[in-house]
């Protein structure tokens, strides 16, 4: 339960007398200071919403333009369809109890409920470097695969490193890359799903 007094203090709704008394409590009460820290973080998070909303709107305006640039691209269409399918599967809601990590007893349960394996980009015949690295992973050599992807030093290779880490259930490593990954619109839903799984799994670990 959130401390009403704390919220009133944060929102500057206290009288001078109340504020001084509350501040002296803050000095000695570590738990209260901790609550204030989370409230400040939540405020900053909420403060970012207008920026995120505007960026999302711009992406929506741009989306038809981008789509018309590559109408025949099979990969583009396939990614879009997969993205939409995943969006439907994405029943994880942070604001909904079903998505709370506490709903799952262990990572296996979380996996069964939320994780879907990606369509690994394996091509026959002449393989590109990413396909080669993924082939290595799927044949059991995770170390060489990740090292090869790391050497490519591209957002595409980083994305596939995340897929490998999540598949291999190393959520911290995946999350580390996810935080700096530049996300393509067509992959937004997939990235959100992976990120959500990682965060819930870390809580369960």
């Amino acid at each position, binding site marked *: 339960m959130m401390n009403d007094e704390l919220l009133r203090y944060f929102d500057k709704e206290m009288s001078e007398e109340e504020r001084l008394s509350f501040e002296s409590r803050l000095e000695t009460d570590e738990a209260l200071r901790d609550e204030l820290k989370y409230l400040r973080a*939540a405020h900053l998070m909420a403060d970012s919403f207008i920026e995120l*909303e505007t960026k999302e709107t711009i992406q929506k*305006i741009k989306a038809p333009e981008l789509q018309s640039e590559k109408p025949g691209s099979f990969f583009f269409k396939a990614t879009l369809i997969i993205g939409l399918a995943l969006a439907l599967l994405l029943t994880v809601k942070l604001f909904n109890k079903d998505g709370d990590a506490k709903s799952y007893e262990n990572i296996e349960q979380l996996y069964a409920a939320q994780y879907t394996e990606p369509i690994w980009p394996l091509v026959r015949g002449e393989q590109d470097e990413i396909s080669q690295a993924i082939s290595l992973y799927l044949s059991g050599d995770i170390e060489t695969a990740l090292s090869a992807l790391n050497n490519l030093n591209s957002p595409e290779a980083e994305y596939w490193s995340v897929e490998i880490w999540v598949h291999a259930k190393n959520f911290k490593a995946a999350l580390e890359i996810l935080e700096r990954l530049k996300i393509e619109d067509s992959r937004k839903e997939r990235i*959100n799903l992976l990120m959500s799984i990682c965060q819930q799994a870390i809580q369960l670990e």
Partner: protein
Amino acid sequence: MSVTSQTDEKMDVLQFRASEEYRAQWCKQLYKNIYIRRSVEKTVLYYGGNTEDAEDVFQDCIVALFNRIFKDVEFSFPENISAYFSGMARNIYLSKIKSASRMSIAESEFASTDFEQNPVVKNCGNFAELIYSQSTESCKRVLMYWSAGYKMMDIAKMMNYKSDMMARKKKHECLQKLIRVMKGNPAMVKKILNDE
């Protein structure tokens, strides 16, 4: 809202703050406006950037303008929008190259920091997007208004609540959910607060 090639049309700032749909209409109008886009491009090219930089800066300008209109109650929509965008583009682009250390100290003194990216977006952008995309519409709205410092009475009015008590209750409920998510991600909270 009629869309003109020049934005000589006046924005209804109150409606802008109250309606996401209205904001989206304005966003589209500005984004598609060739005159504004050209003025930004011209500015960025003048300072040594390329067309790709100009596109990024143009988007940042829209984000910065919307932030300002939403959060600054004193703000009134600029008379000459192309000139306003050109000024913003200059500041934003110079700030960008300053942070990328592509500018001399003398030049950097001219780079204003009027476009300060939110530390959450800057440090934990993907996490913020995840939370944003998974919040309910009403929670997004009430928390946006709360963080921008709107009075409960105004929030109630904009959200069509019968009383400010209802707005307060909603804010409390949404904030509690958000804090619960934050508590589940202490590493992210650390990152968010470090940059304050």
